[in-house]
C-alpha cells in the first residue's frame, strides 16, 4: 500500500487547483500607447474633462446611468438598474444590487450621496457661496476649486440627494430638468467609494487612484510614463477579458506606430488620418475608428471690427466646402453633421436642419453688400492641437481667398494666446463635444451664459441667452425642439458664431489578431464581449 503523508494530503488540493489558476492567468496583458495619460496627474473625473480622461474613465469608474459607447451612445442602465420620474424635478433610481468596489465593499446609496456631495462640492454644498483653493487638495479633503466649478456647471440645479433605502436614491433638482438622466451619465457623476475617500490622507492622494466599480482597478501610476490597471474580477458585468491593461505615454505619433510595428504595443491610440495607410500597409495591423461625439468648428469673434458685420461672417460660411476637407484630410472617414447637433440627440435631433451651403457666388454677393474692401481678418491658428488643424486652416484660407476674403494666419502657441482680448482676434479653431444626447450638453456648453464664448467676449447675444435658459428648463418636447431650432437659427444664420466643419474622428491602430471594436466616442471599452485575442 502506498503511504500518503500528511504534507502530500495538504498539497493535493493545491496541485489540483493549479490548472484552474493557470487558466485564470492566461488572460492577456495588453499594452496601449497613448499620447497622454492624464492632464492633471489625477484620475478624478472633474479634473479630466477631455479626450485624455474620457478614454480611460469607464475602465475604472462608472455612473448610475451608463452610455452605450459601442452602440449609438444611447443611455443604458449602469449602476442603477432602473429610474423613474416622480416629477419634472425629481428622479428616483434603483441601484444595482451586489456591485463591488475595487476595495471589496458593496456599493450602497451612501456612496451615491457621497459621490454627489462632499466629493464634488466639498464642504460648500452644491449651492454654497465660498470656494476652496487648489492647494487645499494637497493637505485636506476639500476638492480643488476647479472641481467644484465643473461640478456646479454639470449639475446646476441639483438641490440634494435623498436616500430612500440602501438601494434607492432620489435626485432632487431646484428647477425642472428633463436632461437630468443625461447629466447623471456624465463622467463627473462617477460613483466612487466613500470609505476609500475617508481613508485617503488628502484629496489629491485619493484623486491619483480613486476607487470605483469599473472592470479594472488602478494599480500603478507613474506620471507622464505609465498607468497600469488590473482586472477587477468581482466586476458585476462579468470577469474582465484582460488580466492587465498597461497604458504607456508616447507623445510622438511615430513612436506609437513604431512601437506597434515592433511588437511592444498592442494598441496605438490617437492615430492621425494620414498615418492610417502607413499602418495598414502592414498586413498584421489595422486601424479602427469612426466619427465621435465632437464637432469641429471655426469660431468668429464678432467684436472684431470687420466681423462685426454678420454678412461677412455669413459670406465666410458660404465660402467653405466642407466635403473637400473631409475627402482630402480625413480620407472620407468622417461626416458633416447637420449644424451643431448629432443624431444621438434622438427626439431632439432636427433632421431637416442644413448647414449654410457652399456657394461662392452668394459669398461674393454678401461681401459686396457689406462693402468689404479686403480688410485683413486674422486667423489665430494652433499647431495641430486638433487633428489636421494646420492643413485644414490653410485650405480654409484659400477657400476664403477664392471668395475675395483676405484672411491671414497668425500662428499661436496655446489657447490663452488664441483667445486673448488683443487687437486682431478674428477667427479661430474650436470644437464642441456633446457629452450626452441633448443640445444642452453640446452647444450650450460653449455659447450662452457663463460659457467660454461669453467669457472671452467673442460672441454673446441677449436673445440667445434667453432662449437657452428657456430650453434648459422646458419639459415639453415640441417646445424644446422649437427652442433648439431657434438657437441654431441665431448661431448659424442670423448672427453666425461659428462655421461647422465636420465631426471629429478618433482612430486607434491595433494588432489584427485582437478582436475589438472601437467606440463611437473617446472611450476605450475592454469589457466582456469586446475583447478576444486569437490564439
Amino acid at each position, binding site marked *: 500500500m502506498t503511504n500518503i503523508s500528511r504534507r502530500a494530503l495538504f498539497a493535493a488540493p493545491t496541485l489540483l487547483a493549479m490548472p484552474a489558476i493557470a487558466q485564470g492567468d492566461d488572460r492577456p496583458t495588453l499594452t496601449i500607447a497613448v499620447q497622454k495619460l492624464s*492632464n*492633471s*496627474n*489625477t484620475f478624478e473625473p472633474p479634473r479630466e*474633462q*477631455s479626450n485624455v480622461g474620457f478614454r480611460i474613465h469607464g475602465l475604472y469608474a462608472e455612473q448610475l446611468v451608463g452610455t452605450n459607447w459601442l452602440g449609438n451612445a444611447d443611455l443604458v442602465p449602469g449602476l442603477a438598474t432602473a429610474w423613474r420620474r416622480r416629477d419634472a424635478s425629481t428622479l428616483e433610481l434603483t441601484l444595482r444590487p451586489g456591485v463591488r468596489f475595487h476595495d471589496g465593499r458593496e456599493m450602497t446609496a451612501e456612496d451615491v450621496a457621497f459621490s454627489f456631495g462632499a466629493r464634488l462640492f466639498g464642504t460648500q454644498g452644491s449651492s454654497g457661496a465660498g*470656494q476652496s*483653493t*487648489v*492647494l487645499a*487638495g*494637497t493637505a485636506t479633503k476639500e476638492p*480643488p*476649486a*476647479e472641481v*467644484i*466649478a*465643473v461640478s*456646479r*456647471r454639470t449639475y446646476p440645479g441639483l438641490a440634494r440627494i435623498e436616500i430612500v433605502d440602501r438601494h434607492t436614491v432620489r435626485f432632487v433638482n431646484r428647477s425642472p430638468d428633463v436632461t437630468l438622466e443625461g447629466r447623471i451619465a456624465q463622467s463627473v457623476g462617477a460613483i466612487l467609494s466613500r470609505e476609500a475617500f475617508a481613508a485617503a490622507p488628502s484629496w*489629491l492622494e485619493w484623486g*491619483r487612484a480613486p476607487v470605483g466599480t469599473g472592470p479594472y482597478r488602478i494599480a500603478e501610476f*507613474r*506620471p*507622464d*510614463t*505609465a498607468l497600469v490597471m488590473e482586472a477587477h474580477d468581482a466586476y458585476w458585468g462579468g470577469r474582465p477579458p484582460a488580466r492587465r491593461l498597461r497604458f*504607456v*505615454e*508616447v*507623445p*510622438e505619433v*511615430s*513612436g506609437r506606430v*513604431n*512601437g506597434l*510595428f*515592433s*511588437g*511592444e504595443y498592442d494598441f496605438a491610440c490617437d492615430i492621425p488620418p494620414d498615418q492610417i495607410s502607413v499602418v495598414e500597409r502592414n498586413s498584421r495591423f489595422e486601424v479602427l475608428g469612426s466619427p465621435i461625439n465632437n464637432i469641429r468648428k471655426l469660431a468668429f469673434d464678432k467684436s472684431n471690427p470687420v466681423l462685426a458685420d454678420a454678412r461677412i461672417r455669413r459670406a465666410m460660411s458660404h465660402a467653405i466646402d466642407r466635403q473637400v476637407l473631409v475627402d482630402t484630410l480625413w480620407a472620407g472617414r468622417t461626416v458633416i453633421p447637420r449644424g451643431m447637433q448629432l443624431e444621438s440627440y434622438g427626439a431632439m435631433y432636427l433632421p431637416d436642419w442644413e448647414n449654410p451651403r457652399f456657394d461662392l457666388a452668394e459669398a461674393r454677393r454678401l461681401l459686396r453688400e457689406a462693402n468689404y474692401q479686403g480688410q485683413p481678418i486674422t486667423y489665430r491658428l494652433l499647431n495641430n492641437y486638433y487633428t489636421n488643424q494646420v492643413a485644414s486652416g490653410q485650405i480654409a484660407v484659400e477657400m476664403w481667398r477664392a471668395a475675395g476674403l483676405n484672411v491671414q494666419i497668425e500662428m499661436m*502657441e*496655446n*489657447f*490663452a*494666446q488664441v*483667445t486673448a482680448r488683443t487687437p486682431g482676434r478674428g477667427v479661430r479653431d*474650436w*470644437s464642441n*463635444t456633446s457629452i450626452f444626447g441633448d443640445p444642452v450638453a453640446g452647444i450650450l*456648453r*460653449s455659447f450662452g451664459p*457663463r*460659457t*467660454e464664448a*461669453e*467669457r472671452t467676449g467673442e460672441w454673446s447675444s441677449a436673445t440667445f441667452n434667453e432662449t437657452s435658459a428657456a430650453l434648459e428648463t422646458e419639459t415639453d418636447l415640441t417646445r424644446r425642439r422649437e427652442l433648439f431650432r431657434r438657437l441654431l437659427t441665431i448661431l448659424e444664420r442670423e448672427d453666425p458664431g461659428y462655421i461647422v466643419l465636420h465631426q471629429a474622428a478618433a482612430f486607434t491602430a491595433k494588432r489584427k489578431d485582437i478582436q475589438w471594436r472601437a467606440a463611437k466616442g473617446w472611450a476605450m471599452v475592454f469589457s466582456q464581449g469586446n475583447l478576444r485575442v486569437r490564439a
Partner: protein
Amino acid sequence: MLRFFGSRLLRAAVTIVMVVTFAFIVLRLSGDPAQIIMGADAPPEAVDAFRTAWGLDQPVWLQYFHYFGAIFQGDLGRSMRDGRDAIVLVMERIPATLALTIPALLIKLGLGIPAGITAALHRNSFIDRAVMLMAVAGFTVPSFVLGLLLVLVFAVQLGWLPSGGQESWRHAILPIITMGVGGAAVLARFTRSAMLEVLGQPYIRTASAKGVPWRAVVWGHALPNAAIPTVTIVGFMVGSLIAGAVVVESVFSWPGVGRLLVVAVANRDLAVVQCILLLVAATMVTANLVVDLLYGLLDPRLRNQPKRATGAA
C-alpha cells in the same frame, strides 16, 4: 585667486537671476496657465477660481516679488498640475535623465576626442577624410532624425531593441547612442581643429628638431595645449547634463527632466519650469566656473597672467 573666484561667483549669481527673471516674465506674458491647464472647455468660473487660488490675478511684479521671496526661504513653489512641490517633481526625474546623459557624455569623450586627434595626426589622409565625413554627418543630422532612424532599424526592422520607454537598461541604448553620436561628432571637429593649430606652432617644430620622439611631442606638448578649446566644449556638455536630452527624451518617451520641461512649458506649469531652469542655469554656471579654473591648470600663462597684460606675448 580669491578675487578671481569671487568675481566668477558673483557673475554666476547674476546670470542665474537673469535667467530666472527672463523665464518668469516670458512665461507669464505668453499664456494664461489657468486656461491652459484647465483646458479649452473649462467653465469660466473654474478658470477664475484657479487664477485666484494661484495668485495669477495679482500684478506680475507682485507675483515676481513673492516668487523671489519664497526662493530665499527655500520654497521653489508647487506644480499647478498636481499640487506637489516642484523641486520634488524635478528631483524625481533627474536620475532618469542622468542615466542617459552620463553614458552619452562618456561616448562623446571616448569617441570624439580620439577621433579628432587621429584625424589631426593624419591630416589630409584617407583616415582624416573618413573621420571628418562621419563627424559632419553626425552633427548635421538632427537628433530626432537620427533617433527615428535608429528605431526603424534596430526596433522595427531587426527587433533587437525597444523603441521607447524606460522599463530596462535595453531601453536606454538607442537614446544614449543618439545623443552620444552627435556630441562625439562635435568634439571630434573641435579637437581636430585645436590639434591642427597646435601642431603648426613653432614649439612643436622645435621639439621635433631637438629629436624628441613624435609620440612624446604629441602627448607632452600638443595635447595639453589643444585641450583648452576642447575643455570649453566639454564644459558645455557637462552643463547640459540635466536638461540636454529634451528632444531625445521626447522621441524615446523617456520620462526625464527634458520630458517634464516640455510638458511643464506646454501647460505653463510655472513653478516647475522655473525650478528646472534654475537648476539648469546653476549647473551650466557651475560647469563654466570649473572650466575657468581648469584653464588656469592647463595653461600656466593664464594662471600667472599680470592684471592688465592682455594680448601681448
